[in-house]
């Protein structure tokens, strides 16, 4: 029945079914009226927000080899060390599974943070400091060793720095893994990890931490991707990347680093109802966008990520399918609180109001993005379009600048990368912003840099003379605003000094009730809408172009991708 509902929903959102017809079909399948109503509302929201379908053709079946053209290399196939979003979203998510799973291939949208996966259920203590994970029994890694509580603890201890608690780290502890995941483990304040039985793992925290579960799948998934300890025992740390062994629906077959990676269906996947449909997936690194498009047109790949926006209309005319969907992505600016002209809130508000974000999304980005209205990602439960961010209004912007003593405007420098992960078309977008800002008197000089050079400069915090910089991230987890807005956060590269954010974030993080936590995070968003330290510009819909031969392709509503249901029709 689930598959028939999925199919009906897809037809509804693609316009092949009327709302009445969908309701009749859903009722005949036994769905209750309130559920039908919720599905219709959800489908309407999806359709209103994006002009692109969420899925390709849906059809039962299996088989074939999927060839995926990726926009960059994957890095290391180790769930603790692989940091690239490309590595995780298209390669590792198929081999490894996380303690906390999300159902990203659901056409309706993300379900609750915990979808029964290798974790069956999670309990939280009344004081919010203890989380008990009940693991699915009977699961093995693909090397035959047991996935159990000991394996979970082994994996966590690779990246949890216990030296801060005065303890010695175990031999598998990795400094780089701990450094990369510190943004999660530091605020989580894990103090103890025990396994009362082989299928139960207990995390004990020093204090309640509301985003503990929702934060686990974030940031490369590496936080909780489970690899087989036996591989490390046999080959050492480098061996984990050379012999990736997880519990997932696919097995690693071979790779040529930086060129091609092949995974094959796991015939012994522990959940037969969600076993892989395709026989094999080949990931090919095609960094040049024109080459990727040519490969799709030439029939050599079935999927390409990050197609150039100018090519989308042409691809659609040729019979390829372009899917897109809201996801946690946020393209945002930060201003340097230490530059004198940004100290007045009216100036920051004026700058934000000068930018025609909807026009950028429509005309520059060809509707592959939405105007951002929140500092939260659109898939985050605390996202709202009622946070109070001002609308585009250059007339009012000029008035505010004059009131603040800047009737003649001012000059500033905007550092921007020329590319990079999640950056979309950064230079063109920066030029758009500069042109809009110039109309109200803010004269922006762009300072462009290659991505790693830019990260190096960005990570050091804005220096004197730099007024604006830009970044892209966002999470489905409620945790995200801690990163750019907390005054002590290492991502507060604009040196924003307002401790009211810290107070609200502390209250949000320690809330025991999820509704209270969400309300507090929304209060953070509302405060930012007034103070404008982080300027949310657009949310990328992350278009993907696929071959009409692909079946059951569902555009992910998160950073990660799930290819279990996808297959190729000959």
């Amino acid at each position, binding site marked *: 029945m689930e598959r028939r509902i999925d199919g009906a929903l897809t037809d509804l959102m693609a316009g092949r079914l009327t709302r009445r017809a969908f309701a009749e079909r859903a009722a005949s399948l036994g769905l209750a009226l309130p559920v039908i109503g919720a599905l219709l509302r959800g489908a309407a929201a999806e359709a209103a927000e994006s002009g692109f379908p969420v899925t390709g053709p849906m059809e039962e079946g299996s088989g074939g*080899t999927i*060839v995926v053209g990726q926009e*960059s*290399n994957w*890095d*290391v196939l*180790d769930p603790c*060390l692989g*940091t*690239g979003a490309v590595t995780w979203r298209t390669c590792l998510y198929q081999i490894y599974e996380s303690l906390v799973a999300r159902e990203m291939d659901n056409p309706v949208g993300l379900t609750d943070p915990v979808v029964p996966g290798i974790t069956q259920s999670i309990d939280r203590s009344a004081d919010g400091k203890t989380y008990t994970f009940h693991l699915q029994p009977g699961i093995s890694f693909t090397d035959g060793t047991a996935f159990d509580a000991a394996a979970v603890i082994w994996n966590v201890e690779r990246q949890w720095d216990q030296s801060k608690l005065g303890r010695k780290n175990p031999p598998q502890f990795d*400094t*780089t893994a*701990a*450094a*990369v995941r*510190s*943004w999660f483990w530091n605020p989580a304040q894990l103090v103890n990890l025990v396994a009362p039985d082989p299928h139960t793992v207990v995390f004990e925290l020093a204090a309640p931490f509301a985003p503990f579960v929702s934060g686990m799948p974030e940031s490369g998934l590496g936080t909780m991707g489970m690899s087989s300890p036996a591989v490390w025992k046999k080959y050492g740390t*480098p061996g984990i*990347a*050379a012999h990736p062994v997880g519990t997932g629906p696919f097995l690693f077959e071979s790779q*040529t*680093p*930086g*060129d*091609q990676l092949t995974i094959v269906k796991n015939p012994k996947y522990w959940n037969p109802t969600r076993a892989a449909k395709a026989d094999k997936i*080949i990931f*090919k*690194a*095609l*960094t*040049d966008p*024109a*080459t990727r498009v*040519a*490969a799709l*047109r*030439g*029939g*050599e*790949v079935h999927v390409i990520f990050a197609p150039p926006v100018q090519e989308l209309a042409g691809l659609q005319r040729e019979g390829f399918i372009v899917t897109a969907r809201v996801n946690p992505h946020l393209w945002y600016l930060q201003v340097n609180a230490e530059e004198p002209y940004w100290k007045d809130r009216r100036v920051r508000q004026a700058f934000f109001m000068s930018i025609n974000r909807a026009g950028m999304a429509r005309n520059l980005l060809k509707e592959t993005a939405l105007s951002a209205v929140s500092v939260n990602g659109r898939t985050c439960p605390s996202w709202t379009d009622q946070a109070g961010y001002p609308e585009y209004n250059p007339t009012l912007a000029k008035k505010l600048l004059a009131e603040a003593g800047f009737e003649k405007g001012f000059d500033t420098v905007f550092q921007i990368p020329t590319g990079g*992960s999640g950056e979309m078309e950064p230079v063109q977008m920066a030029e758009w912003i500069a042109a809009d800002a110039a109309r109200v008197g803010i004269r922006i000089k762009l300072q462009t*840099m290659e*991505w*790693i*050079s*830019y*990260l*190096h*400069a*960005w*990570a*050091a*915090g804005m220096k004197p003379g730099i007024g604006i910089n830009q*970044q892209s*991230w966002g999470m489905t987890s409620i945790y995200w605003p801690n990163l750019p807005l907390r005054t002590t956060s*290492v*991502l507060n*590269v604009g040196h924003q000094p307002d401790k009211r954010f810290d107070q609200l974030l502390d209250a949000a993080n320690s809330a025991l009730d999820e509704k209270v936590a969400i309300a507090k995070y929304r209060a953070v968003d509302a405060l930012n809408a007034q103070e404008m330290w982080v300027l949310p510009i657009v949310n990328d819909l992350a278009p993907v172009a696929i071959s009409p031969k692909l079946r059951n392709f569902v555009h992910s509503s998160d950073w990660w991708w799930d290819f279990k249901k996808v297959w190729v029709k000959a």
Partner: protein
Amino acid sequence: MLSYAAKRAAAIVPTLIGVSLVTFALLHIVPGGPVVAILGMAASDPKAVAAVTRELGLNRSLPEQYWIWLRHALSGNFGTSTEFHVSVSTLLFPKLAHTLVLTAGSLVYAVVLGLVIGIATALYHRSLFDRLAMLLTLIGASAPVFWIGLLLIYLFAIRLQWLPALGMTSLLGGGGVLTVLKHLILPAFANSIISLAVIARIVRSSMLEALVQPYVLAARARGLPRWRQVIVHSFRNVLPDAITITGLQVGFLFGGALFVEVVFGWPGLGYLIYSSIEARDYVTMQAAVLIVSAVFVVVNLAADLARIALDPREVGA
């Protein structure tokens, strides 16, 4: 000749050490580094940066880092890639082989077509064919290689569907030498165009000089067939120039394959260098640049020795 060869061979090692030193210095001048590439946005955390810097040994002084690298490199150990976490040797040498295949294919195009066009345009000097051929070679030499590559893909892979668009073999597996050769046709041609143009022009101007030499006029007066006048008498004397320029072009073809490899998804050394630059994978970049330089130096030496073998007067020169 032997002492000349020995002198040149002895200069190879110091040359390569010099190249590695300059490369090392340039890498460390560029902002960012492997730590930033590894940590991404977590690089804003100074403690994380310090921890990974220590783990990679980048907290050592630059001279110490260079000395450690050089010592290991001289024994064939190029270190571990910070991007892929595998030994650089296992990354490098298969890709070197792929680039050599691409270079060989490009060389065949460049030499065969360059010689044919150079000789033909000299023979039909100032004809429409001569002018058209020189114009096309000028355009080919001036146009960006990646643009030419994309045009070739569009025409032959997408519109006509005669040839594959990318890769070295079929992505779906299978196929042998013939499959590789089929995949080689377009990228090798794209990579060869500039060298083809250079060889054609040099051969043309050398042939024009040779064709008016007294010994060629004498051959014509003796009633020798045209082909003997051209090949045996004229071209033979153009050969040293052709070999020298071809030798120089080999290095150019090898080192310049980067753009072609990116456009065609050819899994070679150039593409590895490109991704290593992006990832600030210092050890891989150093090793790759060293290999490219070594090939360049050795090929130039071979070209010079071949030229001397053909014309011993060159030793004194």
